[in-house]
């Protein structure tokens, strides 16, 4: 039977530390998965998720309870990931470049045929990992975790319009990657494939 998160939140808010520990145990795999999808590696995901629970613990009194605990945690995790990525970008500017080109792994399979038999989840996950972090964050939060545009914008520190533009670009890039059409192939690539 799944734990009663609302009851645990009530106990934790009244100072029951063990209730908060139970909340962590019930939700950490979910938050870790989100952190991993946003950060793209285990080490950063671990840091982000630790930081997120610490912030949640300190801010639990501010949690109004009108949203689900997990949704509140998604927002905190997204915010921690954004902070972490911003720190990282000060060291490695290329990480946040929207125009970064992913490596090509589409050559050996027929996307149309694969689509007929259903998506392979790991293909989608891999394609997500190859997106630039800025675009990945928005599409993960919107299309996987169903957060509203306004919440995403707030946690990532951008405008709602910017969040929508990034979502649009991220969807287009993923579509191009998973279902490439003739128009997605650049003339140079086309020339190369004819030459072979």
């Amino acid at each position: 039977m799944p734990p009663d998160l609302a009851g645990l939140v009530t106990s934790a808010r009244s100072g029951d530390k063990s209730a908060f520990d139970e909340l962590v145990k019930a939700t950490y795999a979910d938050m870790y998965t989100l952190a991993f999808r946003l950060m793209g590696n285990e080490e950063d995901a671990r840091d982000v998720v630790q930081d997120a629970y610490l912030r949640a613990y300190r801010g639990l009194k501010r949690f109004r309870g009108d949203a689900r605990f997990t949704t509140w945690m998604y927002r905190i995790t997204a915010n921690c990931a954004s902070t972490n990525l911003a720190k990282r970008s000060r060291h490695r500017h290329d990480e946040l470049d929207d125009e970064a080109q992913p490596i090509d792994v589409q050559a050996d399979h027929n996307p149309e045929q694969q689509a007929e038999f259903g998506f392979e989840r790991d293909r989608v996950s891999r394609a997500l990992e190859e997106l630039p972090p800025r675009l990945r964050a928005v599409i993960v939060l919107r299309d996987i975790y169903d957060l509203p545009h306004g919440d995403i914008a707030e946690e990532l520190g951008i405008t709602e319009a910017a969040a929508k533009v990034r979502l649009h670009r991220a969807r287009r890039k993923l579509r191009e990657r998973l279902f490439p059409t003739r128009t997605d192939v650049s003339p140079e690539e086309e020339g190369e494939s004819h030459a072979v």
Partner: protein
Amino acid sequence: MPSEHREQRRTARRLTCEEVAAALPGIVDGKAEADRRVQHHVASCLRCQAELVHYRKLLRALRQLRTDYLEPAPGVLSGILANLEEAGERGAIRSLLSGRRAAYIGGVAVATAAAGAAGTIVLVSRASARRRMPLAG
């Protein structure tokens, strides 16, 4: 009606597949209403219908990932709990220290008041003693 004519002229220009393709990622989830010209174009263009199908499949696949949890390394949970424990201890020490500080300040205040009161009593008793001395002489 002039406004109807304007509307007809506006809708009369047909969109290209490239223009429609650029609009599709924004409308695929059905949250934003598609422009009527985009709707008309997609209804009659197999290429754009195929593109829309691709976007829908992509969206479905992404939603499926929602219930796909990764297996965190064994140290992740213990790391989070240890971090919280440490934060809890730090908080307790802080509140203990601030409690002690309050007690110290309270003690100093009480001691000061007591000293003041004692001083007043001494002064009053000395004054009354001085008043009594001439009678004794």
